[in-house]
């Protein structure tokens, strides 16, 4: 009974207290988000109501106001034709913003439409539209617009339409790559199995998932369009009858030596608008990322005192972890303890299993020993003593001399743990040359020897390969060879066989066992698999939600688990349970 209660608790709590927080709410909690939104709203209002606000007609010249200084009803002075700069500035917002929106709108409609189709359909449509997009992309849009001026004439909206087409490829590429990523998700396959129409799959399962980044891109493209459009107006390829900030700058430029301040205002207006768009884009991105990273509820299991079969004695221990605390800084600035007061030791030549389910903190503990926690994580307390020296407060520079030579690491995912741009050989020999100071030739000999020791039949070929040219099992052997290459005393192996097939797993376990006896290597083996524990470990530490619940020699843990959580884990194992057939026979008897 206790077993199931423990497990029930563990899964129930993961649901507790998670509130849905929308992107908008997060955006409005970010000061830059609020500021940029308000500023943009203000600019938009000005653009809409400008004709009602201005008191001087922006098109009417007053001869006495030509290049006038501020004052006398013209708060910002007059331009080269004696028109009110302030009025023109306010009214100029209209066409400037409209132009930006038209261009970004056209770009979005064309780019997203084609991007969705190309990404989802693939094949020839993808090829052709990709080629056309590249073609448009490489042309400098301003030069094209200048050339197009011979066709369009001074027609601002048409020019912005053309600019929209020129900017569409960036939307196309973004959309297409997002679609290709999202399309791989299994929920798209599940929808296909339910015979949901392609149109609905694209609309409901793809577009809604990728719209966040597209909105951000729209905001950024609007800012780009505003700058390009102003540039065109600035060189005199705009509509001379309607004021825009670009044409006002052109006017100011022509009378640069006559009027000292006219050039400031339109530039400032453009810069402010564009800056608020950029900041809004950044704030939106942060808000989206925050929502996606929504904190998994902090899990609190009901605490039962840990069981230890041996009192920790640091005397003969190679590695001794004492009261280790690992904290992460979360988005709200608070601290989140993922490992809380963990103590254990590893003796020379011993294999210690660190066992637990996801969220138990076993991987965090392993990475903390290497002092290679991901960004945001840090050792907040306790000691990590290797041969009498505390590593917990060493600098990264000091850790460099410890890693590789004293502590080594074998990761979980073989393929992502090799640099894809470097050959296996150079990745193996680099640490050997740096750490052991061996010349290139000897380092290569040693690397080939190591590859042979991890049962690679053709070491030279693997040595000359790039990571993408070898299989996952082969890559894991390479990583093990790399880990032992500088004769470490202890290896931290983080789920070293989880990503592999069972037959490969058995071979990798054999290799680890042999290396351990040959080199008297200590291993800290992080795993969730009790089969692997039974195969390789001498002692076991069981972790649950950041704490150790039980520790003991492997035989005892399997024979008589004492802590309720360990018992629950053991009873959840399938081995030894009656098969489907046996169960139905039993039921029939009853």
């Amino acid at each position, binding site marked *: 009974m206790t077993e199931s209660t423990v497990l029930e608790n563990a899964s129930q709590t993961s649901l507790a207290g998670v509130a849905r927080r929308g992107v908008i709410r997060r955006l409005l909690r970010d000061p830059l988000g609020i500021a940029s939104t308000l500023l943009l709203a203000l600019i938009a209002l000005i653009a809409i109501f400008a004709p009602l606000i201005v008191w001087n007609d922006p098109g009417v010249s007053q001869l006495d106001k030509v290049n006038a200084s501020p004052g006398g009803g013209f708060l910002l002075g007059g331009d080269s034709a004696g028109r009110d700069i302030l009025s023109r500035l306010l009214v100029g917002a209209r066409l400037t913003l409209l132009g930006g929106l038209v261009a970004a709108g056209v770009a979005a409609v064309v780019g997203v439409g084609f991007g969705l189709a190309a990404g989802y359909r693939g094949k020839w449509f993808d090829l052709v539209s990709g080629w056309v997009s590249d073609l448009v992309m490489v042309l400098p849009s301003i030069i094209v617009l200048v050339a197009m001026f011979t066709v369009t004439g001074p027609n601002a909206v048409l020019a912005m339409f053309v600019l929209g087409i020129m900017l569409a490829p960036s939307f196309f590429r973004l959309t297409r790559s997002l679609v290709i990523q999202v399309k791989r998700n299994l929920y798209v396959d599940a929808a296909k199995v339910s015979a949901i129409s392609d149109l609905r799959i694209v609309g409901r399962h793809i577009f809604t998932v990728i719209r966040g980044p597209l909105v951000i891109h729209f905001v950024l493209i609007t800012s780009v369009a505003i*700058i390009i459009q102003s540039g065109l107006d600035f060189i005199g390829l705009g509509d001379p009858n309607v004021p825009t900030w670009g044409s006002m700058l052109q006017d100011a430029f022509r009378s*640069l030596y006559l009027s000292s301040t006219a050039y400031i205002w339109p530039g400032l207006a453009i*810069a402010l608008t564009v800056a608020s768009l950029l900041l809004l884009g950044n704030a939106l991105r942060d808000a989206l990322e925050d929502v996606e990273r929504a904190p998994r509820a902090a899990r609190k299991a009901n605490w039962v005192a840990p069981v230890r079969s041996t009192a920790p004695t640091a005397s003969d221990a190679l590695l001794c972890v004492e009261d280790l605390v690992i904290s992460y800084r979360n988005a709200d600035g608070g601290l989140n303890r993922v490992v809380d007061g963990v103590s254990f030791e590893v003796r020379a030549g011993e294999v210690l299993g660190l066992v637990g389910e996801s969220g138990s903190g076993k991987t965090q503990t392993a990475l903390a020993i290497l002092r290679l926690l991901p960004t945001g994580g840090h050792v907040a307390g306790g000691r990590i003593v290797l041969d009498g020296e505390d590593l917990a407060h060493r600098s990264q520079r000091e850790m460099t001399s410890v890693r590789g030579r004293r502590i080594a690491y074998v990761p979980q995912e073989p393929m992502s743990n090799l640099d894809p741009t*470097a050959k296996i050989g150079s990745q193996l020999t*680099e640490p050997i040359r*740096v750490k052991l100071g061996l010349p290139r030739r000897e380092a290569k000999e040693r690397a080939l020897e190591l590859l042979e020791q991890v049962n690679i039949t053709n070491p030279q070929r693997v040595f000359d390969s790039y990571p993408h040219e070898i299989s996952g099992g082969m890559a894991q052997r390479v990583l093990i060879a790399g880990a032992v290459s500088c004769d470490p005393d202890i290896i931290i192996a983080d789920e070293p066989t989880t990503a592999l097939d069972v037959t490969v797993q058995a071979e990798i376990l054999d290799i680890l066992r042999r290396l351990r006896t040959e080199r008297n290597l200590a291993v800290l083996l992080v795993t969730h698999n009790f089969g692997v524990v039974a195969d390789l470990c001498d002692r076991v530490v069981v972790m649950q939600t950041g704490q150790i619940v039980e520790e003991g020699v492997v035989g005892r843990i399997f024979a008589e688990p004492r802590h309720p959580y360990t018992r629950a884990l053991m009873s959840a194992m399938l081995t030894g349970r009656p098969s489907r057939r046996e169960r139905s026979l039993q039921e029939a008897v009853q």
Partner: protein
Amino acid sequence: MILFIIKRVLAGFALLFGVSTATFALVYSGGGDIAGQLLGGDAGPEAVAAKARQLGLDQPLMAQYWHWLTHAITGDLGVSWYSSQPVLPTILQRLSVTLSIVVVALLVVTLASVTIGIVAALRRGWIDRVLQTASVIGLALPSFWVGLVLVIVFAISLRWVPATGFVPFQESPARWFASIVLPVVALGLAAASATAQQVRSAVIGVLEQDYVRTLRARGLSGTRVLWGHVLRNAAPPGLTVLSLQFISMVGGAVIIERIFAINGMGSLAVDSTLKNDIPVVVGVMVVMTVVVVLINLAIDIVNGFINPKATVAS
């Protein structure tokens, strides 16, 4: 690798053909009564017809295009309708002026953005925030306005450099430098800001990769991993951004040349557009495309050397 380069060159030719065809079709068909406009309002219909015949405008569009294309392949892009100068030499002379500004700007942008991007990615914290803010400002200021402000401050008020004009390098390196320093700054500010952000996120992206941790776990120092592995993996996105920035700076040069009264390719494009000098407009587009294709080719080749998978994948 060779196959990869050949494919890229062929794609470049295809692009060139596409661009020239599209430009030709749009510009020649959209211009209306070209001959009439050239001669001005007073010309009689016979004169206009004669002018059209002289320019070949009475021919069907396809025939005009065929005539242009067969000459263009031999490097003859026609003559200007105004100056009667051959188009290609005129453009090339102007191109050297523009490129000397854009290429210098590209070098400055690369140096500045890579340094800033890497520092921001490695240091994070307040340095990162300051650099992020600076890059938003850099992006928000339009290059032509920056140009104007620079002219007013450094040329008109302080008189440190000339306000306008371009001095070729061969004439006087010092005066060449003085003549391009303001245009380069105006042109490069936004490009450097954009690129620095991209470099930053590319470097951060690579730093978060599993293999970086594994390399550190082998006992390689942070610096060694950065120079030996991180930068090589972050280079492809960085180079892509640089090639796009190059293209946008070539466009931006059109405006910057106006401000500093530099007779480069950009001012040639604007002038001939305003005068409806169509052979020059088409020529500018073609030459521009060649430049862009060459730059992209160079960047693809560099990318291919850095990342062995790129040549296979594309």
